[in-house]
């Protein structure tokens, strides 16, 4: 396909008085894994829903696989796959029947799709549960079946809204592996997540949203370098340590810092050197850890540490 898989220009959406997406621009190149990060209520899910046709475009322009999301909903939906945040499998049907039924929603001939359904059951590692009712599956199996279901129509683009939320580490890993296999096949993946590890592992590019706007965008390593530097120094400040005085002596040598409840994180290309520069007699610390800077540092730095409720 030529051109980006998704193209948004001044894309906006409000629900009543509440602005969910506030005029954002982004482009998802075809064939990569593109991540949307952001706290609850940032507008990620609303953006995904506009892409897969479960929310109408409120303002601006949205093109999916080159088609206009306002006017060509049916055509767009026939060429993309969706893994929604909520698990909405059909509990009255078996595992295999869920996939067969999904094929019929796409108008695919049931006889022609049979081999593909078997292949998808293997792909999702649930072939041995094919004839069980979906209700009997574990959470991880259900999510893998959700991924398999999104592939029934051989989509060019798959939208995954928090595909691994609520899964245990093993189940999460199984979903990641299946997404990595899809990526190797050249399918464009668009995912939202709360897990920085997931984003760093899977995404070639990502953007961070907050309060309906895009805060930053880029490849994960580039984002880390741009916003926090290579390394982080985490200091647990002692009870009588004057944090602002410490920062006065040292902030200029760091690429940035975060102070939160007596825990000071400083970012720098060489955190060891920064640690050496601290006057430990004047500024006692309970602990000092040098580590690599992560996407989580970028995320917290750009979206703050306060709790967000609901979305």
């Amino acid at each position, binding site marked *: 396909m030529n051109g980006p898989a998704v193209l948004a220009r001044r894309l906006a959406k409000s629900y009543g008085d509440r602005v969910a997406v506030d005029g954002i621009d982004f482009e998802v190149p075809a064939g990569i894994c593109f991540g949307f990060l952001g706290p609850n209520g940032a507008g990620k899910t609303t953006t995904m829903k506009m892409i897969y046709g479960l929310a109408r475009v409120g303002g601006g322009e949205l093109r999916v696989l080159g088609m206009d999301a306002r006017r060509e909903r049916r055509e767009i939906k026939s060429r993309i796959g969706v893994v929604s945040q*909520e698990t909405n499998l059909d509990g009255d049907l078996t595992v295999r029947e869920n996939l067969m039924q999904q094929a019929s929603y796409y108008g695919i001939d049931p006889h022609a799709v049979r081999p593909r359904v078997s292949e998808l059951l293997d792909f999702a590692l649930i072939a041995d549960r094919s004839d069980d009712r979906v209700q009997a599956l574990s959470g991880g199996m259900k999510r893998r079946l959700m991924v398999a279901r999104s592939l029934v129509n051989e989509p060019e683009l798959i939208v995954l809204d928090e595909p691994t939320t609520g899964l245990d580490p093993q189940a999460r890993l199984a979903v990641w592996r299946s997404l990595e296999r899809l990526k190797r096949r050249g399918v464009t993946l668009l995912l939202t997540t709360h897990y920085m590890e997931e984003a760093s592992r899977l995404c070639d590019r990502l953007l961070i949203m907050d309060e309906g706007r895009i805060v930053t965008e880029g490849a994960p390593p580039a984002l880390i370098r741009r916003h926090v530097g290579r390394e982080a120094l985490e200091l647990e400040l002692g009870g009588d340590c004057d944090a602002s005085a410490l920062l006065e002596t040292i902030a200029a040598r760091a690429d940035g810092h975060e102070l939160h409840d007596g825990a000071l994180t400083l970012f720098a290309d060489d955190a060891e050197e920064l640690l050496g520069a601290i006057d430990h007699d004047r500024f006692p610390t309970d602990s000092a850890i040098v580590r690599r800077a992560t996407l989580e540092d970028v995320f917290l730095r750009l979206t703050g540490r306060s709790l967000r409720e609901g979305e």
Partner: protein
Amino acid sequence: MSYEPGYAGLGERLGPRDLIPSAGHAAAVWLRNAKVFSKLWKGALLPTFLDPFFYLLALGFGLGTYIAHGINGIPYKEFVAPGLIASAAMWSSAFETTYNVYFRMNELRLYDNVLSTPVEPQDLVAGDIAWSSSRATVYGVVVLIVVAAVGLVSSPWAILIPPFVLLGGMCFSVIGYTFTSLVPKIDLYSYFFTLGITPMFLFSGIFFPFNQLPGWVEVVAWLTPLYHLVEITRGLATGPDAVSILIHTAWLAVVTAILFPIPVRALRARLVP
């Protein structure tokens, strides 16, 4: 009163592109419901089969014994029996398009998945209504077989009853779907049954005719879909009058067509905000 999540009222006016269903996609929705029914039908069919049977026993054979001359020249049992075919279709449609649609939409969230495939709201509503009226026809035919077996059908025209039950089922279903798509809370469903379905069951001419009652009673009955389906089934079971059947059929078809856009609009506003 707290509303269901996503409750959005009637929604905006839609053009033909968003109102006319695609047959293939509606068929896929029908197929899903039929598939699930095929697994559960034994448990689901029995009560609906027993229900009219008890009414027939109590009223047709019980009360009917005291109505020596029958009604309008028809023995009372034979008068009541065809109406029970129509009411079975009504009860089936009413449950299917209220509780069952509600659970698929709001509890199981199945419609979110369906609408993220090429299926659009008008296909979903059409498929669900087609299914609900198919189910109503199954129920109606079961009752037809029962009343025919006990000798309460005197006209061979009764063989034509099923397609009319299908049409009546569509009309009941579109009414139930309209209610479900507009009602903000499941708690209000009891009103639909207590103030709508039950009175309709009692006062649509199944158990007594209107010719001895004040004229306005028949006018009110004329406004209900059940009355029209009862007139059709009774006509066919006892010897039909073609003109009257045509009028009742037209009533059911026109009301169904007029109401159809309402649940499409409301469902779309609710699920694709």
